[in-house]
């Protein structure tokens, strides 16, 4: 089991309660964004492009607790920005833990080691460290040389101090599945509890507008990565969501599954798209035109999205929505598969990047070191 039994039980009973109440739309994880400023400036990020006075603003602990209580989810994810830049983050996390919320504090870990003493290990708290791949891949992805080493140091320090540590890997066009698999080995060896992996979203404010994965390539990439998987790998994604990424399941988006609250209010409709804000969670649920979102809606902004925030909630809902879904999921947990797939093995062995972008070239598929590599222009 990739999460503590108490957490799995809490989530299962929460979802069942929603079902018994007949709630058609219920949230699963609150994405709490207490600030937008960050100590990285990643090219694939669409979250930090704001004027300085907005980047200096932050939610107070009281505003965070109010949002958590309004929303009522058993799990709270704290992305940003970089949450460790918020001076009251230890107070916010302690307040959520006291409310028995399972907290995933998302961090690039640049400050994790030095701030670790401000937090207390708890089954309710996990540091979800963003690591986008092996050293060169991560450093290129976050546009900072040396970022990977600092993040891994933070992970090891947190594990050693007795914290739950999970990871989050976002993949863009040009990702090398062989490298991602080595990356998983490294993370598990570092002692992380479990890993999450997802394709990047096409943020239209991201500086990089040319390396977002389409659905066909996403499925091929994730089939290569997640088939023939090692038994030592632990994932904290729903098994059916992982199958969705591999092209073995088909889920529509559940845009209300992971609602987002920030200094602007409740974001319509989801963590990824900004189409306005509501002042209360109830207003968000009642005034958002949900039928305008998701691939089925024809909205071009949703066309190639396969991100966990919209689709993992669909997997969970399917899990609890029918006996068939429940049995399917139970089987995945009781008899976890390594997804043997000869075609995927072949895909891995023959993998060549479709675009000769430096992110791939710098990695050195033929075993060369970073210093020996030369840039190769794109096609």
């Amino acid at each position, binding site marked *: 089991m990739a999460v503590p039994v108490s957490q799995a039980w809490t989530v299962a009973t929460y979802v069942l309660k929603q079902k018994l109440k007949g709630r058609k739309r219920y949230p699963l994880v609150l994405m709490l964004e207490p600030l937008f400023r960050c100590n990285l*400036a990643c090219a694939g990020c669409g979250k930090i492009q704001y004027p300085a006075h907005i980047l200096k603003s932050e939610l107070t602990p009281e505003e965070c607790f109010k949002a958590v209580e309004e929303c009522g989810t058993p799990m709270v994810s704290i992305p940003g920005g970089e949450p460790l830049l918020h001076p009251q983050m230890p107070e916010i996390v302690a307040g959520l833990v006291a409310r028995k919320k399972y907290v995933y504090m998302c961090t690039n870990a640049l400050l994790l080691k030095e701030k670790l003493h401000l937090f207390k290990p708890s089954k309710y708290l996990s540091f979800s460290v963003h690591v986008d791949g092996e050293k060169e891949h991560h450093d290129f992805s976050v546009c900072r040389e040396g970022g990977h080493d600092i993040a891994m140091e933070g992970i090891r320090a947190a594990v050693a101090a007795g914290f739950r540590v999970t990871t989050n890997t976002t993949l863009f066009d040009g990702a090398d599945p062989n490298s991602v698999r080595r990356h998983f080995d490294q993370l598990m060896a570092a002692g992380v509890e479990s890993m999450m992996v997802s394709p990047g979203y*096409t943020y239209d404010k991201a500086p990089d507008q040319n390396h977002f994965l389409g*659905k066909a*390539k996403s499925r091929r990439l994730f089939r290569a990565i997640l088939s023939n998987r090692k038994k030592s790998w632990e994932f904290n994604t729903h098994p059916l969501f992982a199958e969705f990424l591999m092209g073995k399941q088909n889920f529509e988006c559940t845009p209300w599954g992971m609602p987002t609250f920030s200094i602007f209010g409740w974001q319509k409709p989801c963590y990824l798209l900004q189409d306005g804000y509501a002042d209360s969670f109830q207003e968000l649920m009642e005034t958002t035109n949900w039928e305008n979102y998701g691939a089925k809606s024809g909205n071009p902004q949703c*066309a190639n999205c396969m991100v966990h925030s919209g689709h993992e909630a669909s997997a969970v809902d399917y899990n609890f929505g029918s006996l068939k879904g429940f049995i399917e999921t139970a089987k995945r947990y009781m008899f976890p598969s390594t997804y043997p797939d000869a075609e995927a093995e072949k895909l891995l062995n023959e993998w060549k990047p*479709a675009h000769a972008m430096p992110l791939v070239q710098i990695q050195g598929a033929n075993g060369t070191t970073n210093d020996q590599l030369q840039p190769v222009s794109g096609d």
Partner: protein
Amino acid sequence: MATEQQEHLKIEQLRVHSADELETIAGREKENLEGWIPTLATDAEIREALEKAFDYRGDVTITRKDGSKVEGYLFDRRSGATLADSFVRIIPVADKTKVNVVYADIAAIAFTGRDTAAGKTFEAWVKKYWEKKAAGEKNIQIEPEKLD
């Protein structure tokens, strides 16, 4: 959310291909709105300008018909049936209070702040990386903006 005009690359791609078959999705065509002062002669022009202001990642300055001004980040808009029913929501530069301005009260809008989403492409980062690497530099990175 970008307007249809701004999203046309992706829309064109989706007209020809199924999203399920796409290898790489088209990026967004960026408009250069910094410094823009739109004409607000018709209701349609007012609505379009405010939609673009909502999409813009810099501050704007709105002049009301009574001559008063508000400068800040326009983070939301609520579009009603008439201009009197519609309003924008702004966080002013020097104040954290959210301010509502009704469309019908707006005399002018100017995109006065720097577009924080402009520039800094991945290609520019890669080029800069290799130049610095060749020059023997270490710890190469894109620094986040200084806030003070």
